[in-house]
């Protein structure tokens, strides 16, 4: 029996100890007419050799092409040590670290992770992960509403990923939270400040500020943060964690002291109330060591100002001491969580994305501050070079005149779907077609070139694009 070690002798002596004649007797409390028949749709079990063959055949049906799609999931080099270590049985097959003494490995990793993420984002604290960036954004919205107390409206620029906007909407709408779309400037591909200004004085809980935004463009985060704070809302930073190796951390955005006293309770004190910065920073940790994997597993991260820590959803690890005064780590602030607070919890989240976070922690440790910066800069440079090469093709131009991180929008002379299909035939995934989400942009293609791309790859992209539009 696969994975079941019982011999028939074991079974008899166990049944005798229980005092029943057969295993089926153990199910005698289930109404007989409810018992299942055979699971006809399932075939016979395969042994590992057979399933290995099946999966290798299936994997062979997935055809990896040279990839220039980003749009929220980024191809980066992942050091081999990351997954060789993260899949060690002691990390891989452990549960949530409820028994701290027997889980110091996982707990210390998470504490290190919290330190790294708080520092990357420039925030005071971090939780131990959420499901992904998009659902994390929803959690940030709910948190902002809890913190703000009086408003249930969130301003969301159209430059936020459409995937994130739709996910957040699915989640927050059930609590009657309204998402108000802020349009973008057609020249810059960033938030239209004039349109935003029209919301001054209205009641809103938070403004979401994406950096870089879905077009890869860099927003004027200082102005946006200041605007949110000046108008009585929180600033929710939505950031790519890799970009933060280069970009101003969310905790330092803007320069206006926060206007309305933040809630927070016991832990709040004046010294902790930084005068600047976004209040919450969220995003997807995928660039930190998660393979693309058709979309998951990735992980959501969330950091915030100290004053908001008790409003945060998810697990939080704290450092403390043991009976002998020795340093140790443990789950803390559990009173926020569903298993204690139940209906009054900050969220229903229970399991998070622990193993992805372990991988991310190892990833960041292997890269170090300098390595992460170099990867970010190389990605930036590659996408700049790609844009320059592509706009050398007649009929192709760069759509927005704005600094970008590692993604950019190209305007094509032909419908994008058709161009992409041609490029795919040549072995290239040419980018993400913006025409469904942003029809007003016409034939707009979002392209991304990370540090994984060589000059030859870029040339291959350009040649195939040229051929595809010819």
């Amino acid at each position, binding site marked *: 029996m696969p994975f079941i070690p019982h011999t028939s002798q074991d079974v008899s002596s166990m049944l005798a100890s229980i005092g029943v004649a057969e295993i089926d007797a153990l199910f005698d409390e289930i109404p007989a007419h409810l018992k299942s028949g055979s699971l006809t749709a399932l075939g016979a079990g395969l042994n590992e050799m057979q399933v290995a063959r099946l999966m290798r055949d299936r994997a062979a049906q997935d055809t*990896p092409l040279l990839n220039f799609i980003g749009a929220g999931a980024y191809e980066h080099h992942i050091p081999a040590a990351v997954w060789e270590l993260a899949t060690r049985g*002691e990390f891989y097959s452990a549960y949530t670290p409820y*028994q701290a003494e027997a889980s*110091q490995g996982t707990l210390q990793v998470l504490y290190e992770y919290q330190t790294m993420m708080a520092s990357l984002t420039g925030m005071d604290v971090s939780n131990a992960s959420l499901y992904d960036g998009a659902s994390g954004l929803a959690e940030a919205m709910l948190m902002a509403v809890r913190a703000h107390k009086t408003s249930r409206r969130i301003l969301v620029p159209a430059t936020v990923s459409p995937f994130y906007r739709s996910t957040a909407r699915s989640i927050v709408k059930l609590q009657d939270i309204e998402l108000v779309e802020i349009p973008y400037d057609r020249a810059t591909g960033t938030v239209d400040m004039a349109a935003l200004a029209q919301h001054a004085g209205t009641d809103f809980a938070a403004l979401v500020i994406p950096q870089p935004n879905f077009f890869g463009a860099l927003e004027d985060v200082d102005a946006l943060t200041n605007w949110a704070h000046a108008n009585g809302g929180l600033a929710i930073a939505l950031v790519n964690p890799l970009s933060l*190796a280069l970009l101003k951390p969310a905790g330092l955005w803007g320069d206006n002291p926060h206007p309305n006293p933040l809630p927070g309770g016991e832990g709040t004190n004046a010294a902790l109330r930084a005068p600047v910065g976004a209040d919450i920073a969220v995003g997807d940790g995928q660039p930190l060591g998660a393979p693309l994997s058709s979309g998951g597993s990735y992980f959501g991260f969330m950091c915030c100002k100290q004053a908001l820590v008790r409003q945060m959803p998810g697990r939080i690890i704290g450092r403390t001491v*043991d009976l002998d005064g020795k340093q140790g780590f443990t789950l803390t602030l559990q009173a926020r969580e569903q298993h204690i607070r139940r209906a009054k919890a900050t969220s229903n989240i229970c399991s998070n994305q622990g193993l992805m976070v372990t991988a991310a922690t190892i990833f960041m440790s292997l890269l170090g501050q300098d390595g992460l910066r170099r990867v970010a800069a190389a990605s930036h440079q590659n996408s700049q070079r790609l844009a320059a090469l592509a706009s050398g093709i007649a009929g192709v131009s760069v759509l927005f005149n704005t600094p970008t991180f590692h993604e950019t929008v190209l305007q094509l002379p032909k419908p994008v779907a058709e161009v992409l299909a041609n490029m795919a035939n040549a072995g290239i995934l040419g980018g993400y077609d913006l025409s469904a989400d942003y029809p007003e942009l016409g034939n707009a293609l979002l392209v991304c070139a990370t540090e994984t791309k060589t000059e030859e790859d870029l040339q291959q992209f350009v040649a195939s694009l040229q051929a595809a539009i010819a």
Partner: protein
Amino acid sequence: MLIFERSHPSRRNAAQAPQAMAAVNIPAALLRKTAPLLPEASEMDVVRHYTNLSQKNFSIDTHFYPLGSCTMKYNPRACNTLAMLPNFLARHPLAPAHTGQGVLACLYDLQEILKEVTGMAGVSLMPMAGAQGEFAGIAMIQAYHASRGDTARTEIIVPDAAHGTNPATAVMCGYKVREIPTNADGDVDLDALRAAVGPQTAGLMLTNPSTLGVFETHIEDIKHIIHDAGGLLYYDGANLNAILGKVKPGDMGFDVIHSNLHKTFATPHGGGGPGAGAVGVAARLLPFLPLPVVAKLPSPTSGRGVGGEGAVEYRYLTEADLPLSIGHLSAFTGNIGVLLRAYIYAKMLGADGMHRVAEFATLNANYLMAELQKVGYRIAFPQRRASHEFIVSCKPLKDATGISAMDVAKRLLDKGYHPPTTYFPMLVPECLLIEPTETESKETLDAFVAAMKEIWDEAHATPDLVKGAPYSQPVRRLDDVKAARELDLTWKA
């Protein structure tokens, strides 16, 4: 020692990044001025640090881990190896469907498998954990009532034994929670339930077998009460391990179920996740399934999809296909890597294997319950069959010796066992919720009983020894109060 303490400024781990720092063409105002606090350590020091840290964990691969409600069964290593085949890892989520026929076929097949074992009409694999599965389920109930214009239903009924995610989920979906008590046998109090239902009832969330480790005997009465009141039935299937192949929630009349693939389908817990909380629905909820769902269609183009005659192509259904869907719950497609692992596991079990899971999980639980009772431990519901798990109450032990459930738990660490779940469910005082799972052998259970006997004896003979436990771990008992009072959540240089 923290990784930051192994860091040395200007040390560079040169193998993992481009050698040269590329030019950055971004205005200075948008750039960061000080470096983030990331360690500057050698690759070897990082490998050594995390290898050594990993050894400071109990895990299934190293220890018996009978954590109730968590189903810590063996995570077959093949599931990991095969789910990490390079082509699976390399594919971008927005790559066209024809480049992903392999992974999509796996997901489709997994949907079908889950439909069969749960008895539901349709499945979406997208929820990223049990709690998100619950969210999806309750959101579908909400959407269902809303689609019928039935907007007065503002309450979700939850038994008091429910897992904390249930009430928390109901609130996240905009509902009020009405709690129903449990009777002395561990079943839902039917009178209380009858009194609670009404036109305000949107639905009931039931965990079955319940977190008390017993099968809800009045399941059919409950169904009638809720359905008659116009409510829908939500099945928290985190404990599906207890009934897999034995009884199908669909056959019990449930409208929606989530199942924790990271429990019943043996995907790893990873020290906290990722999981997968697939949802299955009865026919009337099909239009509301969360996106995307994988469909198998006749191949529109030759040469793509799975070729040959009668060729098919797999693709995701989107808003266009399911306009009433509750929508997306993640940016892309949930925890695909976890789903692949669950699929591989399901294929290895097959029909026969599925039938056996509940049988042997239940056998192990009832055996362990019988043996611990013989040692002297008080069983919370001795008149009931254990399902996959059961509860020991240390209340009598504590009254006699001062030794609490937590003391027993900590002393188990010294004996080489991960403790059971402690102090959950809250209904039973000083409780230990014990779930051995089907993958443990009789020898392991017997050795665990022997350890529990030792602790029983120690509790009576040398209670201080037990109160001071553990002694064998990297740290002794930690000061949780200090942790919460003097928050230290990040390391400062």
